C-alpha cells in the first residue's frame, strides 16, 4: 500500500477541445473563473492578456493556441489555472486558459507512456507523457515548456 502511495502522483485534469489533459497538481496554485484581462498588442497570439491577481500581474496563455487547437467557438468563457514553476529568480507564474476544469486524479506512472512518435512537432515537446485511463487517454503537459515563448523584438 505504502508503495503505491509513494508511486502515484496527483494530476489536475482539464479539458481542451476534445482532449483530456493533466498537469502535476504541485504546480497548480489556484483555479480562477474567467478574469478581465488587458491584452498585449504585438505579443504572440498565445498571450491572451494580463491579469491582476491580487496585485501581482500575471500573463494569461491560451492553451488551445499553445497546443495548436482551433479557437473556442461555443461562446463559453475559459477557466484560468494559475501555475508556477521554477524557484528563486527562475520562478515563473502564469495563468493557463483551458476550456473546463476536471477532477484531481491519482495516476500510477506505470500507466503512462512517452507520446507516440506520430504526434507532430511542437506539440510533442509540450506533452510529457500520455496516460491510459479507463475512459480514455490523458495528455500530461510539461508546464515549464508551455510557459516558454520565443519573442523577438522585431
Amino acid at each position, binding site marked *: 500500500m505504502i508503495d503505491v502511495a509513494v508511486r502515484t502522483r496527483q494530476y489536475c485534469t482539464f479539458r481542451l477541445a476534445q482532449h483530456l489533459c493533466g498537469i502535476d497538481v504541485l504546480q497548480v496554485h489556484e483555479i480562477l473563473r474567467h478574469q478581465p484581462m488587458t491584452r498585449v*498588442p504585438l505579443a504572440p497570439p498565445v498571450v491572451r492578456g494580463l491579469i491582476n491577481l491580487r496585485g501581482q500581474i500575471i*500573463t494569461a496563455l491560451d492553451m488551445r493556441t499553445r497546443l495548436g487547437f482551433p479557437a473556442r467557438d461555443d461562446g463559453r468563457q475559459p477557466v484560468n489555472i494559475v501555475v508556477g514553476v521554477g524557484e528563486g529568480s527562475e520562478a515563473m507564474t502564469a495563468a493557463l486558459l483551458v476550456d473546463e476544469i476536471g477532477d484531481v486524479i491519482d495516476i500510477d506512472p506505470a500507466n503512462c507512456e512517452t507520446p507516440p512518435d506520430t504526434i507532430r512537432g511542437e506539440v510533442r515537446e509540450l506533452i510529457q507523457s500520455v496516460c491510459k485511463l479507463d475512459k480514455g487517454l490523458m495528455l500530461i503537459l510539461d508546464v515549464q515548456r508551455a510557459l516558454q515563448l520565443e519573442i523577438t523584438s522585431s
Partner: protein
Amino acid sequence: MGDLDGLVTEFLVESYENLDRLDKEFVELEKNPGNRDVIASIFRTIHTVKGTSGFFGFEKLQLVAHAGENLLVRLRDGVLTLNADMGSALLRTVDAIRGILGNIERSGAEGAAIYPELIAELEALCTGRTVAAAPVAPAPVAEPAPQAAPAEAVHPVPSVVLPAVSSETASRGADPAAAAGGSLADQNLRVDVRVLDRLMNLVGELVLTRNQILQLAGSAADGALATTSKRLDHITSELQEEVMRTRMQPIETVWGKLPRVVRDLAKQIGKQVRLEMEGKDTELDKSIIEAIKDPLTHMVRNSVDHGVEKPERRIAAGKPAEGRILLRAYHEGGKVTIEIQDDGGGIDPARIKAKAIEKGILTAEQAAKLPEREILALIFAPGFSTAEQVTNISGRGVGMDVVRTNIERIGGSVDIGSKVGLGTTITIKIPLTLAIIPALVVQSGGERFAIPQINLLELVRIDTDKIATEIEDVYGAPVYRLRGQLLPLVHLNKVLGLPETQGAALNIVVLQADENQFGLVVDNVLDTGEIVVKPLDPQLRGLAIYAGATIMGDGSVALILDVFGLGARAHAVGKGREGRTDATAVAGEPKEPLLLFQSPDDGRMGIPLSQVVRLEELPASSVENTGEVEVVQYRGEILPLIRVFQMLPERRRNPRNPDAGVSPDVLPVVVHRHGERHVGLVVGRIIDTVEESMKLQKAASRAGIKGCIVVSGKVTEILDVEAVVRTVVPDFYRS
C-alpha cells in the same frame, strides 16, 4: 569619523548579527566537536570582523579577532582538535569582541580594555601547549561588555554620534527617544523581501478598496461617512508610500564601498585614480541593489585595471597623471541608467578582433564583417579577456560575461562604447522593479497605456477642422509643425496594430527619446498619476515597446510604454540618430531639414522642408490646362502646377537625364503654400530628406537658384522657391 559613520553602523549591525549566530554555532560545536563546516563558518565570521576592524582602524578589536582567528585556522585545517579550553577561550573571544563593539556603538571608540591575557592564552593554545596556560586567565578577562563600559566614562567623544546616524539611515520613522536610547541591533530589523512584496500587494488591494469606498461615499449623502472615508484615503496613501519606501534604497549603498576598492586597487598596481559619483541618491529597489552589487564592483575594478593607464603613459598622451572614473546614475524612461565612464586608453577594436580570432570565438571572415559596436560587445563573450597579463585582479576571462548574465537576469542590458585614447563608457540599464514613477495615462484602440512622465514634453490637441491643414505629409510620413520644428508623428494604434478609431480631435503626446522628439498620436489623454512599475513576465520581455505593466485605480492592468522601444519600432528614433552624427561633424551651424530631388542634368536640388506642405505623386493624366497654366484638381481645389525644370535656364542643350528619374506618367509634386494659396511644383525623383546647414557655399549660377551647398558629399542646388513661383503666379505672395 565623519563619512565613516554610516559604514561603522552597518558594520556594527552586521557584526552583532554574526556574533548572535556564533553563539548558536558554538553550542552546535559542543555537541559535535569534529564539525569542520561549523568551524569554518565561525572562522569566516571572526575573519570578517578582523578585516573590517582593520579597515576602520579599530586596532584592539583587530588584535583580539586576530588571535582568535589564528586558533580557528588550525582547528579548521585539522592541525589542532577542539578541546574544552579552546572552546571557552573562543567563547571569551566572542564576548571580548562584543564588548569592544558595544564601546564603539556607545562612544565611537574602542575603549580601554585590551584583553592581554585572553590573547596570550589564545596564542598559547595555538602552539599546542594546552591547559598549562589556561588557569592564568581566570574570570576577570572573561567578563565582557558591562566591565568594559565604565572605562568609557573617561572618553570625551559625545555619545550622540551613532544613534543619530542610525536613525537617519535605518529607521527614518523611528521615535527619536527610542533611537537615542536603544542599541543599534534593536532599531534595525531584517525583513524577508518576500514579506515586503506581500505587504506591497496587500496595500495595492487596500488602495483599490479605498477607491471604491470613496466612490460610494461620494454618492451617499452621509456626512460622517464622507469624513471617515477622507481619513481612510489619507491613511491609505501614507501607508502605501511608506511600504513602497521600505523597498527602496539609494544606489549609494552599493557605491559607498567603491572608493575604497578603487583606492586600494589603484595603489596596488601603481595607478592614480579618482572616483567621482553623480546621482548618489537615485533610488532603486532593494532586490536590484543586491543584484547589481557584484557586477558593478567588478566593472569598476575592470576600469581601474584595464581602463585607466599608468601615470607615465597618461602624461605621455597629454592627459593628467590622475585618471578619472565617473559613476553616474539617473532615472530615464522608466529605467535606471548607470554609467561607468573612464578617461583611460579605450578599447582597441583591432585588439579585440585579434583576441577573438585567437580564442576561436570568431573566424577572421566573421570578424572582418562585424561593425565596431559588435566587436566591442565581444568583451561580454564567455571566456574573453584581453588583459596581456592575468593579474589577480582581472584577466581570467570570467568577468564580463558573468556581469552581463547577472544584469540581464534582472531584465537589464549592458552596453559599451569606447574611443581609443579617450576612454570607455559602460552603460547599464536596469528596470525599476516596483519603482514608482509619475506617468501619463492615455487611451488608444480601447486600451489604456501609461507613458512615463520623464519622457513627456508636452501635449498638443488639434481640433477636427484643423487636422487637414495642420498635419502635413512628407511622402507618407505625417508631420506636425511644432513651433516651426517638424515633429514626426507616430500613430499608437498603427504601431500596436489596434483598431483605428475616428476620434473628434487629434491628441499628440510629444515625447523625448534620447535626443529625438516625436509625437505620439493617441485616441484620448486620460490622466496623470503615480504608478507602480511591475516588470512583465520573462515571456514578454522581448517586447521592447513595453517597459512593464501597472495596476490602475480600478484594478485593471495597463501596459507601460517604453518610449525608446516605441520610437525605434516606429523608426522615429533611429533615423534622427544618423542626422545627429552629421550634426556633430559640423557643429555650430543651425540645421534645416531639406528635401532632395534629382535634377535633369543628373545633379541634385533641394527645397527647404519648411516650404513644403505636402509631397504628392499625381498621375500625369490628371493634369488639365487652363489658359497657359497647367492645373490639377487637388483636395477639392484647383492647384496650379509649375514645372520647375522648365523655369530654370538649362546649362546643357541636351540634358543627360531629361525626365529627372521620373517615369513620364507620374508627376512628383511638392505642394507649397502661402496663406490660403497653394501651388504645386513639379520636380524630379525625390531622393531623401536630410538635415543640413543652409549656409550657402557657392553663389547662384543661374536664375531660380539661391546657391549651392554640399549635402553628403554632393553639390546640391537650393531652389529659390519664391522666385520660381513669382515668375508664374506674380501675386502669389501678396497678402
